[in-house]
């Protein structure tokens, strides 16, 4: 028999080991970023003369200010609209039970597992014909469409469980459907909407494929897409690339640490439902 004491310690050891492996890439990026620009540091070694200026140089080289602005604009374009449309459709399918709602729902669900590479080619020509290539709309509009399956799925799951009496009494008081939705159901759906918002923010911010195919100018891309361009440009200058990568992943990291609990909950629920 294994004694509880030994069990607890093997558990701790395993956990510490796992955390070490998880953190290793971050530590390596950090240490490498402090080496003199243009050198090839060997493995994990603290530099004799840490070059903190590399972060500043990477900030300028990557035009971080512009990138932050661009990613924020894209998120602001995608997330609120996706939430609004997803919530409305989820409400209609899950609560109002529109005629043909089941068919619609199945149609949406089929899109849940769609790999973006599957539609990227026609999307490119479609965006080109719309005259939107190299604008942020080229990322914003398709992403709203691509997020609809999950948003509708997620919000429907919430509305399906709302008791019908709620709407009934509101209707008795003379509320029309929009008021019913806006005044009664949206406030009650805030937790579900918040989780959805967190997930959509993360998926937008980290979107890579659409950014590199549809937008050439890195300063009009998402953070992730800009990092791809940054690698292309500075790929041989490892310390600078490391510093740039760290800077570019800092915003999501900060948001994650601030909203940690919601984040973990949202992502776990998100994958459970998806």
């Amino acid at each position: 028999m294994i004694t509880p004491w030994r069990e607890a310690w093997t558990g701790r050891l395993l956990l510490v080991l796992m955390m070490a492996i998880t953190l290793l890439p971050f530590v390596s990026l950090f240490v490498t970023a402090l080496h003199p620009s243009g050198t090839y540091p060997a493995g994990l070694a603290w530099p004799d003369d840490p070059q903190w200026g590399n972060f500043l140089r990477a900030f300028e080289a990557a035009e971080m200010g512009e990138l932050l602005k661009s990613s924020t604009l894209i998120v602001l374009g995608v997330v609120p609209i996706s939430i609004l449309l997803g919530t409305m459709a989820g409400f209609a399918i899950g609560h109002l039970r529109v005629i043909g709602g089941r068919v619609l729902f199945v149609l949406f669900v089929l899109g849940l597992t769609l790999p973006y590479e599957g539609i990227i080619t026609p999307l490119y020509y479609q965006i080109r014909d719309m005259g939107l290539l190299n604008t942020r709309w080229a990322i914003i509009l398709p992403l709203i469409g691509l997020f609809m399956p999950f948003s509708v799925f997620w919000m429907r799951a919430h509305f399906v469980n709302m008791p019908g009496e709620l709407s009934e009494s509101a209707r008795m008081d003379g509320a029309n459907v929009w008021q019913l939705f806006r005044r009664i159901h949206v406030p009650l759906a805030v937790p579900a909407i918040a989780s959805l918002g967190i997930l959509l923010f993360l998926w937008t911010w980290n979107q890579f494929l659409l950014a590199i195919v549809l937008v050439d100018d890195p300063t009009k891309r998402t953070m992730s897409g800009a990092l791809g361009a940054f690698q292309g440009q500075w790929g041989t200058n490892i310390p600078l690339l490391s510093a740039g990568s760290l800077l570019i992943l800092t915003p999501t990291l900060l948001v994650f640490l601030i909203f940690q609990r919601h984040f973990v909950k949202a992502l776990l629920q998100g994958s459970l439902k998806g």
Partner: protein
Amino acid sequence: MTRPAGARSVHRRPVARKLRGTRGLVGWLFVAPAFAFYAVFVLRPIALTFQYSLYEWDGIGPSTWVGAANYGRVFTDRDLFESLVNAFQLIVFFSAVPVVLGLAVAATIRRIAASRLALVARTVLFLPQVIPLVAAGIAWSWLLASTGVVNQLLSLVGLGGVTRAWLGDFATALPAVGMIGAWVLLGLCTLLLLAGMSKIDPALYEAARLDGAGPWREFVSITIPSLRQEIAVCVTVTVIAALASFDIVYISTQGGPGNTTMVPGLQIFYLAFADREVGTASALAMVLMILVIACALPIQWFAKDNNR
């Protein structure tokens, strides 16, 4: 799920009557905007992908009808077919490693769930899920380079003989890419499985212990069967991540060396935007979309089957 279906319809029916008008036109108005975006930016492109896949087209000039010839190419052209095989090989790393290791880690963590260490671990293990895959790709390319940390550690434990540029070696590039994926997905699987384990009735374990079951027996007869749904979710998410992988491969190897790490997603990208073979790219895209659905659906059914 546990509530019988009848209980629902009891309080649904009166609403349906009161809201009759809303089930038609008004309800449709609520769905219409979402559906419009979905139709224009997802359904239409899917249909177009299918259409393109039947033509030979360079993206600029006139196109020629070729029927199913592009599909024939996907399965006979060695490079194209290899990308599909590679994607399936990646499943071993993207799915099997995180799920099996995740089960082991979660089962171990569960015993010390209340400790501060376990709480910190929840945060730390989640980090790879939050950062852009591109950043993970860059960090790992450097770790796996010939002068990288992985080789440094190997030399330290006396395995200096096996060191190499892991992502540049024909034999190790694909497993190395797979390990990056495993790193990204392990935390998610661990936490999903942990969440599932916390829902298992402790009485089950007590009963098993009274019957003299050891920890391994407990794990096999209680933990695993109770986690059926969570395991299915982990497998679905990770299998899709493997089949549709793009970001990590694009950053770390670009499909090389040779064609050893080429995956369908990247191949579609090259075919459509570098080689200007839109028809072939679209045929591969159709195959990829169908493969993903063909893999995801059975896993879901399997999970729902015995689920109460």
